[in-house]
C-alpha cells in the first residue's frame, strides 16, 4: 500500500535562513506528488506538484521541490524563509481510483525573528 512519511514533525528556522522539508513515499508506480501548506486557521493550499518531466519543480511563494526516484523522495525547499512561511506543510501522493490522496503526517514550521 502507498504511504508518505515526513520524518520531521517540527522544524524551527530563523527568518532569512534556508528551509528543507523531507518527504519519502512508498508507491509502486510512477507517483504524482504534491506539497500543500496550511496556514493557521486555513484550509490547505497547493504549493507545487510533480507529475513527470523535470525533476525540479517550482511552486508558489518561492518554494521548489526535487523528485528523486532512486531515494523515493520529494523534498521541499526555500532559500530564504519569511515569517509568513510559519505553517504546517503536507506532502501527498495520488493513490488509487478517484484520484485519492495519501498524506504524510505533516511538518510544522516555526520561524524565529
Amino acid at each position: 500500500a502507498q504511504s508518505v512519511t515526513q520524518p520531521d514533525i517540527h522544524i524551527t528556522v530563523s527568518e532569512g535562513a534556508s528551509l528543507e522539508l523531507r518527504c519519502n513515499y512508498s508507491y509502486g508506480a510512477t507517483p504524482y506528488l504534491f506539497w500543500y501548506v496550511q496556514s493557521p486557521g486555513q484550509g490547505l493550499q497547493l504549493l507545487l506538484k510533480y507529475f513527470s518531466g523535470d525533476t525540479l519543480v517550482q511552486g508558489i511563494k518561492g518554494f521548489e521541490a526535487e523528485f528523486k526516484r532512486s531515494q523515493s523522495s520529494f523534498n521541499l525547499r526555500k532559500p530564504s524563509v519569511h515569517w509568513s512561511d510559519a505553517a504546517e506543510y503536507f506532502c501527498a501522493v495520488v493513490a488509487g481510483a478517484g484520484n485519492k490522496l495519501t498524506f504524510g503526517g505533516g511538518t510544522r514550521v516555526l520561524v524565529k525573528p
Partner: protein
Amino acid sequence: DVKVTQSSRYLVKRTGEKVFLECVQDMDHENMFWYRQDPGLGLRLIYFSYDVKMKEKGDIPEGYSVSREKKERFSLILESASTNQTSMYLCASIKRLDYEQYFGPGTRLTVT
C-alpha cells in the same frame, strides 16, 4: 476561482448527538472527499464520492456516513458523536480527470 465552503468553522456537540457537516463546491467537480486531520497523523480519508448518490469508503469510515444528493454538495454525518471524533474535518473536491484537490477551510468539531 474554485471555492469549497464548509457550513461551520467551529462546532461543539455532545456525545450521542447526530452531527451534520456540510460541504459545497461551485466548480462542477465530480469527485468530493471528506478527511479528518489530527496532529501527527496528517489527513486521513473518511469517505469520497465520484458522482451523485455514489460513495466509497476511505481509510477510516467507521462511525461516519455520507450523503451526496446534489453534485455540488457532500455531507458528512456522525450518527452518534463520540469524544474520539473530536477533530478537524476538511472537505475537498476535484474534477474527475484532474489531480489537484481543492480544500475547504475546515470545521473544527469538539465533542464533549
